[in-house]
């Protein structure tokens, strides 16, 4: 580190002063995410039997995600399917499926543990909210087809506009996220 090196460093900083910043003005512009980015969970469904119908849920309420969760963020309560109107294939489905997003560390171990590929980490990350209770996400907040997070949907309902997510995934959502589409 001779004086020359210091001068060189100073020169670099000075030249960067005149470069265009790379910052994205996030709320106005969409942030660019990679498909592998781990955000809010999505509970996926099997393909629908007939068009227009909803497919069966992939989740069978086995609680393996809860067992794998290092932060104890997941709570599952299973129940038996009504054979006439099953929620999921097989005898068992998740009656309650909750993830406490305040505890979740988005490590993806639940996704690894899931034997049916039901819980997949999506790319959504805009979940900031005001109350603890609103950050415990249930099935109604995570099943595929639900756009945006709870605060975003609340805001959308208030303003009457569709949910606008603040990011884009140029390569499209991961294939595991069946039925999920993100702005590209």
């Amino acid at each position: 580190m001779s004086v020359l090196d210091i001068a060189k460093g100073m020169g670099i900083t000075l030249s960067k002063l005149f470069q265009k910043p790379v910052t994205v003005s996030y709320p106005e512009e969409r942030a660019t995410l990679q498909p592998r980015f781990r955000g809010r969970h999505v509970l996926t469904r099997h393909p629908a039997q007939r068009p227009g119908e909803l497919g069966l849920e992939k989740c069978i309420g086995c609680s393996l995600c809860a067992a794998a969760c290092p932060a104890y963020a997941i709570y599952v309560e299973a129940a038996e399917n009504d054979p006439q109107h099953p929620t999921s294939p097989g005898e068992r489905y998740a009656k309650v499926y909750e993830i406490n997003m305040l505890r979740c560390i988005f490590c993806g171990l639940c996704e690894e543990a899931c034997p049916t590929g039901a819980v997949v980490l999506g790319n959504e990350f805009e979940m900031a909210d005001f109350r603890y209770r609103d950050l415990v996400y249930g099935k109604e907040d995570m099943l595929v087809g639900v756009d945006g997070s709870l605060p975003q949907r609340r805001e959308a309902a208030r303003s009457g506009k569709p949910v606008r997510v603040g990011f884009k995934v140029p390569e499209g959502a991961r294939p595991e996220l069946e039925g999920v589409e993100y702005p590209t």
Partner: protein
Amino acid sequence: MKVTVDGIQVDLPAGTSAIDAVFHAGRDVPYFCAHAYLSPVGACRMCLVEAGTPRKGKDGEFELDEATGQPRVFWMPKPMASCTMQATEGMHIRTARTSDVVAKAQAGMMEFTLLNHPLDCPTCDKGGACELQDRAFEYGYGASRYGFDRRHADKHYALSDFIILDQERCIHCKRCVRYFEEVPGQEVLDFIERGGHTFIDTEEGGLPVGFQGNIADICPVGALLDNVARFRGRNWEYDHTPTTCTLCPVGCSITVDARNGRLERVVAGENRDVNELWICDAGRFGHVFATEERLTVPLVRVGGELREATWDQAVEAMRQGFLGHGGNVGLYLNADSTLEEGAALVALAEAIGTASLDHWPRYAHTPMSTATLTDVATADAVVVLGADLGEEAPVVELRILEALRGGLLPPEFAHGTAIADLRLTERPSRTPEKLAVIGRESRLWGHAGIRVAASGPDALTRLARPDTPELQAALRLLEGAGKPVLILGADVLNGADAAFSAALGSLAGRVGAKVLALPAGANSRGLGGLNLVPGAGGMPYARLDGVGAAFISRLDPAAQGLPGRARGFTVVHDTHLTATAGLADVVLPAVTGYEKRGTTINLEGRLLPLTQAPLRAGEGADLIRALAAVAEALGIRPPVRGLRGAQTWLEGRYGLRLAELPAGGLLQPPRPAQDAATGTAHTPNLWKPRMVPHPERRGSGVLGREARTELWELPMAPAPRPGGDD
């Protein structure tokens, strides 16, 4: 007898099975069909080992190996099932640890076993506690080489209200079949069809009530499952609490599985001296009352109506209510309360100076019991007098059947109870002539050689002076036996008095019989020993309307047709809003027997510990703390303020050391019982209405988002409404 397992030499008694030799040496062998209390059949073929024995030559000496000078070992040509093979002198055994042949054979067996297994572990309630899962992980190949379709069979249909059967998951170990045949002696389940089409089912239209739940415990896979606990949680999510069942005086060892503060499942625990490994259906499935419709806060009658209150308000209401009653207070508790709770009650009664204290159910006079359950199981003659064991103490019935089967108690090794006791046989022969049942018709009649219909306490006098051929045969059975046991039930004990006790003593003395008088309540024997009965001038439980003010803990006299209120003021301490609680002035929330710490004394006089399962009980308090509140309301310092204090009190007065009990309990010497009139008769009834599970009522414990998270939310200014602009 010296046996060498993987080079480790162990010394074993003759008759030991090879599998026990392996486990005794600290080695492991996978097995599914062998079971400690069932006959070994070698059905699953998983416990393969290589075995070899030395051979004796013509001179009667072992043939020696020239090289080493040691006896030469002749190995059997193929791996052997160790559970059905008896270990012999000098035998050498190789497990998968040292023998590749065994390892390969076991892995191959595992592959076969899994050939038709549906592998639906995520949906299966057994997942996480499944022997097949564990052994497949430890000993299997990890992948199957058979790509064809699996066998399909009936899945998840109810065999009975309590048991769900999934035929696809069955691996044909036959444990359930053998259990019914060997333990309760009921031939209901069997294999149907043959080969790959074999399945388990019954043609009886259901399973017999009584002990069917045990097959859910012993099934090594998820084929037979507890329907009450179905899908309530995964095995790793439960908090397992080993404790003692307080539904009947047997005091079976159980494990309480709770999740999120809800009691979801009860499984049997092992206590070789009490219940071996079996519990009754009431004890296993009748636990729903612990989580349903519980009282969680005190109630106080305001303006003729019970309102929710705080403990402080309840104490204040009791202070008002007890005013003017002075020492005229009655204290009553359920006989399944612990010794510590009884001690607290006795100490408080002494502090108040009242003689009106009582526990229920109990008999006016209980003869001294001298027999233990092991005595029953090894007796050569059993006479059951006026007892309906199915209602009073179901597991005693199993121990009697054990005696009829030969009275073989399984040996114990370094690893615990023997895994395969070769003396046990499939479809065992029984000796009904060793059992005489005198009394009303009950389930035991089917197993008894001598059956006499009789009722009331005069059954004993009739037995002593037989007037019918059957009674004469029963008396002859007693007189001719070496170790006879006389079991007395509610029917004779309800009217018992000192004269009855004397007659019993003379009969038992004459024939050399041990006596087992079944106590009325789970801890009646212990509480009677504390002299927790009305003293001179005191009002018994049945006449609690005779006292000015009463404290009633977990009893429901109103539902029994007894007076439900004291004359002036009534405090009820209960887990549910019972009929009596509905009449009370103050209701304090109580905890069930699953949520207590303490000690109970079972029918044979054994001290058994209770531990507290993590159940959500709101502000429910055990009797010791409730009595402390009563004492506060009465304006006196509670003499016993906690569990430790109660134990000190008991040690000081009776010399009972309850702090550290051995795992299997501690047998207490019999104590002479007290005489105190009850005023009413006790009708044993195991299944209380609240214990009956209603699957449709077993809803989720999870509340809506709002209610669910209210408790742990930070106190905030008025919470913003969803959708509002915060």
